[in-house]
């Protein structure tokens, strides 16, 4: 027991396969051991919990039960799946009576206590910022991203382990550890329209557009997400947004695990970048190229600076030597406070003298 189980969920099997693959590769690279939940089924999000409470908890509890056969923790990268299963976990843990009610609709009862975790939680807890930093091989300093948490990665903070609902930081820390340049922005936790986007397209178009707009305003080249639904609304539906508003957004939307994977040296193909509607490959290639040039320039400046410092040091020693030859040492005590008087005061005095 004690193993971490992995619940991909329906979206990661197909429409968000790149999230699935990149997550598995990144966890593997970081040495985080995991096993897929055997015979997992859909968590029911979101129609189930808006239809019937018991249905929702029953669907989630089945997966918890399946996970309990091989482990005692479960990571669900998709925040919707996470939220459903976490909610069931908590209600079943807190209320033995409810566990019984749920077990009545299951074929086999769930008697375990599996702890459900978010993907950022797993990456930060089981691996950590330092471990990530150590494995970075590709410099992404010129990839300017904004972390987009959406609704469910930050809220409610009691569930997700974020210190603040309005300013979650887990993705920021992961992206910074991967070496990307993280821009500060205002839309970390604003909604993209979620699955209501399907029945009411107007909502997601307007909300997702605003997210893209704010990302660009913040100076980002790409948006990093950790939610298949957010990805679908922002990436796949970017054409719809452009069609509806006559805009011409072309903002690559990357999964946070893809950014980590790229930093770890995985190729575009391995990270399935070609699966995105807005092709991020040109941007990634450009960022990597710029980073190389930037580091070269940085090294050049540093060596120049060092050379200048050396020259200064040499000149100073030279002066000191010459002075030691000429000036008696007693006067040095009087000179020291002079040096301490700041430039402004010295300047004032000069002016007075001039006047």
């Amino acid at each position, binding site marked *: 027991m004690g193993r971490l189980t992995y619940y991909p969920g329906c979206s990661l099997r197909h429409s968000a396969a790149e999230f699935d693959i990149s997550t598995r590769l990144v966890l593997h690279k970081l040495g985080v051991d995991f096993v897929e939940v055997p015979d997992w089924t859909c968590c029911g999000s979101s129609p189930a919990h808006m239809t019937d409470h018991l249905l929702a908890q029953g669907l989630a509890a089945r997966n918890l039960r399946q996970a309990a056969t091989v482990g005692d923790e479960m990571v669900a990268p998709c925040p919707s799946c996470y939220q459903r299963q976490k909610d069931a976990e908590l209600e079943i843990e807190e209320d033995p009576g409810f566990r019984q009610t749920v077990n009545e609709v299951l074929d086999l009862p769930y008697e375990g206590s599996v702890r459900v975790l978010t993907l950022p939680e797993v990456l930060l807890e089981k691996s950590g910022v330092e471990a990530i930093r150590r494995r970075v091989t590709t410099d992404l300093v010129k990839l300017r991203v904004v972390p987009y948490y959406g609704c469910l990665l930050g809220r409610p903070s009691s569930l997700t382990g974020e210190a*603040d*609902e309005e300013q979650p930081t887990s993705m920021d820390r992961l992206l910074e550890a991967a070496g990307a340049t993280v821009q500060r922005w205002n*839309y970390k936790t604003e909604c993209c329209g979620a699955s209501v986007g399907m029945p009411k397209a107007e909502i997601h178009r307007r909300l997702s557009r605003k997210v893209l*707009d*704010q990302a660009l305003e913040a100076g980002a080249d790409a948006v990093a997400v950790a939610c298949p639904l957010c990805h679908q609304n922002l990436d796949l539906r970017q054409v719809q947004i452009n069609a509806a508003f006559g805009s011409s957004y072309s903002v690559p939307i990357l999964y946070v695990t893809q950014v980590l994977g790229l930093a770890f040296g995985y190729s575009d193909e391995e990270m399935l970048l070609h699966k995105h509607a807005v092709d991020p490959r040109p941007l990634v290639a450009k960022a990597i190229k710029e980073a190389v040039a930037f580091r070269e320039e940085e090294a050049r400046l540093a060596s120049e600076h060092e050379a200048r410092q050396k020259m200064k040091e040499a000149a100073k020693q030279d002066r000191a030597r010459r002075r030691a030859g000429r000036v008696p040492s007693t006067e040095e005590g009087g000179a020291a406070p002079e040096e*301490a008087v*700041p430039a402004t*005061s010295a300047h004032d005095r000069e002016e007075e003298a001039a006047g």
Partner: protein
Amino acid sequence: MRIGVFVCHCGSNIAGTVDCHAIAERAAELKDVVYTEDVMYTCSEPGQAGIQRAIKEKGLTRVVVASCSPQMHEVTFRRCVEDAGLNPHLFEMANIREHCSWIHDDMPRATEKAYDIIKMAVAKVRTAEPLFPNEVDVNKDVLVIGGGVAGIQTALDLADAGLQVTIVERESTIGGTMARLDKTFPTIDCSACILTPRMVDAAHHQNIAIMAYSEVDRVQGYVGNFVVDIKRRAAMVDWTRCIGCELCVQKCPAHAPDRFNVGLAESKAIYIPFPQAVPKRAVIQTEYCRWFQQGKCRVCSRVCPADAIDYEQKDTYIQRNFGAIVVATGMDVFPWEEYYPQYGGGSIPDVISGLQYERMLNASGPTGGHVHRISNHEEPKNVVFIQCVGSRDESVGRPYCSSVCCMYTAKQAILTRNHCGPETNIFVFYIDIRATGKGYEEFIKRAQTEFNVNYVRGRVSKLYEEHGKVMVRGMDTLLGQQVEIPADLVVLATGTTSAEGAPQLAQALNISYDEFGFFKESHPKLRPVETNTAGVFLAGACQAPKDIPTSVAQASGTASKVLGLLSKDKLKTSPQIAVVDQSRCVSCWKCTDVCPFSAPEKQSQRDGSQKSHIIETVCQGCGICVATCPVNCISLKGFTTDSIIDQIEEALLA
């Protein structure tokens, strides 16, 4: 022994759930009880007269009144029986209101419980002994902690009445929050014009000593005889020499955030908060000073014409005696940045607190009274005020109303109109407008009509930057519509919170405070300026958020209470104190170890041995020594072990 029991109906407060008549009749069966009666209102004049009549006519030697909490009327009834010739400690109260009728619905069960409570009181009064108070001399000097407008007012009132007053102020100048305000509502008169003369009066008054940059460190003693240790913080400037010429401030090369201007401007490491400071003395903020941080500079020392700079200065402690203490430590502004990330948490430059805006409006403030955006210094076109930031908000742990924000926002909105002219749009997001003071509602109306301030009913959910503006996403609940305003400047009506360190001060003074750090008055209606510790009084916003008129009114009320206390030359001490049976004392001195007041002393006996003796005027009657004495030779008058056991027995008797 002849005990009389009086059961109070308290109108329907008790009689609504307790059958007062029945228990009065039943109480007559209790041992030693010779007279019972149920009365509509025992505390009323006829009620008290009835008790006195019964004492005389029925020859009562002890009295029990079953009514409300002793904290409400114990004093009243003790005086009543005393006037009828009984010792006031041969009286006991049975609390059948707060502890019975008000917390129950079922009459038979509540009645049964009330009867038990009466039985316990009868058992207690049966073992009671007459007690007689001692008298102690009273020190007539008063300590006022906090030199804001409330502290100044109390100090002036007391000093005018002839008492010696010491104001201890934590900052380097008195003046408090009011000194930072630009104008005051609802008159829009200049805050400094009202306050600074009072500050100067306090400074020049022959009966007032101001100890600025000082803190109360420890309080010992009791009413009439407090012993207070005061810490004088090291200012690194010898204030006996400093003349407040500000030359050091001008020449100091090290910059520091200007606390007086709430970070809107920079000040220097050597600091005088504002030109009218009282006392006007410089302080080195060592965390910013080059000499203290880097070991270089000493510019202030060189330029000071009075040779006042003293880098070696240390905190000093002095001890003073006082007869009464007035706490007037005021309030702080709610630290909104920590609690409202949805408003940018302090990262959006054009979102400022109400107090910052106050400084911006002020002609001698950092912008010279010019209203402009922090980000680009342009005059704002859209100014948005958001009320209830840190008030009425349980999600940030502040469920209470800060009581001043509605009015100061209206004032600031009016001043914005004056400063920026008719072109500027002014919006105020509010939930409710609380304008209960004299002339306040009229003031709000003027803001809405005369000054064309657009009041929007609703709260703001989020502030964020977009295209150089601060986007305000709010709700107009009256229209049922979401609204978005591209604002240039957003002013948060930041609420009030208790002053930093308030709980620590309360603990030093042994006074109660609520979960938010506001000090608790003795009774919300009847004893609003007293505390539960005799001789310690409250004035101003340290008790609850208050505006200036209310603070000043309360401060004068407090002064009158202090004068009442100190008009006597001697004070009677409570006779409910501990007493040692020296014949059984084994001289282990455990009592001297545990007593918080050093009341037990070693008293030499004729045989040369030493036994414990409790100094009557020092003992506060807590009884810690009683429970600690290994041979049970100490007893607490009024709360003897026998009387407690008797009560337990009565309560448990079927």
